[in-house]
């Protein structure tokens, strides 16, 4: 089939440079806010995240983080979402307020 979703390797590399100050969602502390910069990963995952409201430019709040690389809970567009650690590590955000000690 010609209409195969492509993986955008070249896009990923370029964006990594552009978003040099973005960190993975898993790096935020509980209660910290950030603005979504980008999500990396397969076509299905990025699309799914966008459909659940995690689109570039939107503000998210990290509500809860489970220990041992457990899932995260974030608030986006007035809704709470649970994200597995693997998923969350692929979402990059620009922290809104850098914590003094972290």
């Amino acid at each position, binding site marked *: 089939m010609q*209409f195969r979703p492509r993986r955008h390797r070249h896009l990923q590399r370029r*964006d990594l440079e552009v978003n040099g100050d973005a960190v993975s969602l898993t790096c935020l502390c509980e209660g910290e806010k950030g603005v979504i910069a980008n999500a990396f990963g397969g076509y299905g995952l990025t699309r799914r995240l966008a459909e659940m409201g995690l689109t570039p430019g939107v503000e998210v709040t990290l509500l809860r983080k489970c220990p041992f690389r457990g899932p995260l809970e974030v608030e986006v567009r007035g809704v709470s979402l649970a994200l597995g650690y693997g998923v969350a590590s692929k979402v990059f955000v620009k922290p809104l307020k850098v914590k003094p000690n972290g």
Partner: protein
Amino acid sequence: MAKQLRVALAGNANVGKSAIFNQLTGLNQTVGNWPGKTVEKAEGTLFFRGYKIRIVDLPGIYSLSTFSIEEIVSRDYIAVDKPDVIVNVIDASALERNLYFTLQLLELEAPIIIALNQVDFAAKKGIRIEGEKLSTALGVPVNSTVAITGSGITELLETIIEAREPRKQTQPLKTEYGREIEEKIQSLEKLVITELPQLCMIYPARWVAIKLLERDTDVAGKLDNYKNGKQVLDYAEKLTSELEAIHGETSAVIIASERYGLAAKIAKTVTTIETPPKISLEQKLDIITTHKILGYPVLAAILASMFTLIFVGGSFVSTGLDYVFSIFTVHSESFFSSFLPEIAVQLINNGILSGIIAGITIALPYIVPFYILLALLEDSGYLPRAAFLMDNLMHKIGLHGKAFIPLILGYGCTVPACMGCRIMETQRERFLSAFVVMLIPCAARTVVILGLVGRFVGLHAALALYAFDLVLVFALGRIAFKVLPGEPVGLIMEMPSYKKPSPKNILLKTWSRTKDFVYIAFPIIIVGSIAIVASDLSGLIDYVVKGSSPLMSGWLGLPAETGIPLIFGILRKELTLVLLQEVVPLSSLSAIQMIVFTLVIMIYVPCVATIAACVREFGWKKASAIAVIDIALALLLGGIAFRLLSLLMSG
């Protein structure tokens, strides 16, 4: 003849869609599958102002793309079957996310009415939505409802009927994207109209254009059937690549962002935040139950009390029912004997009747309370929290937190648990969870474990069996996860706020699930019972005993006669204990034999009803693969356990 209307309910998950469905249809509903799909289809009928209204409850989804079968089923139903009215149920407390879906319905040019639901809950959170403004913004009727109490339902029905009247026709909003995207959509739309006129009879051309730009594989696949499809696809690919080059994102993400932008804009104009929300009881509950440490003891306590309640209460009711039915069967036997030959009496009494009775004594005391408690956990919003807490652990076997839900179901009955695997997103995930769920001891197996090992060997041995089962589940789950091809899917799940469950919804849910269970399981249980009686009468059982004796006594170290309960246990697991008592006196069995027997029962294929459910979900091939693996595993482990335990006991 009454005028007919076909209405579909569509919306996100957790917005109270089923509550509205229940308010509308009450007990007049049937739950089945979409033809050829393992997606639940709930339908119901009601009569209102001379109209016969057929209502279909579409699955709760967040988008009309191709992420899951549910999304494809929903959009095909809306586009192809073209219901007269689509009621888009919206959660007033999460307007933006819900409007994202609404905008997609508008793109499909569906005739929608909005039910702005949970307005009371939104008000609690300090959110007030102006329905009038929303209606103007979207160009469609908006009704405020509180589905749990039924307020606004009559008005909603009136709007449904009015929506068909020509004078009430409104001009629904046309979604508009940013300039670059809009230009591309329009030029692709023109090409679609000229090159694919047949396709435009079914789907709106603009929608097809948008979907092609989003690289929607399902729509692209539809184009393959048309002569000029290739040309359109190539052009779409060119436009999409251009778009992606400009934005540096995948097209689907760009379009989703734009759509969300529009949704946010509309949401902002119609929403007023009134009082700053103070911490409510629900939020306090949420803090405790999802706490990274406290959450686990709470989860354990909830599950423990749930199962204690079910099994203690269940065995009490079950014993009572058994007593009543035993009196009944004695009378029915003498009644049938008066005019029927002995064989027929045996078939009717021990086959059909005792099959029905066995079904009732298992279903009523165990399954019904289980369903009630499950609905309570579901409607209150606790289940997603349990899934959240268990996500980490479930990842160890390649699944994510949501798989915890069918796993818990499995302790009640494997049949609904098998169907519950539908909540997993991909076919691989569904199969993997079903495989694991099969190994979880269901209520019937618990009856054997507690009734044989627990009673005669001791509770510690029974608990050890449960612990062993959990280890086995994790070990096998891990192996299956490594062996099965495909990528594991991560958890992306909405965490709905806690809500007070409505008794009406819980009862309706329990009722429809019990009905579903009875339809699947009862015929098979009855046929199974007849098969047992027939093989007993025809002397087939003796051959079975002879044939299986090397395996039974040689490998498993059990009396040869135990082959009978083990083989017929495939029909009904809870029956194995009764059958065992009939073939060998329980007192003659050693502790080791009891443990080995129970272990085999616990692991091998749950029962035919489960296999039937599994075939329905995954097809013959996969269902029989699971069955064969489970049987082989049970025999293997049984033999090993016999040798190991003998060694331990003698040593």
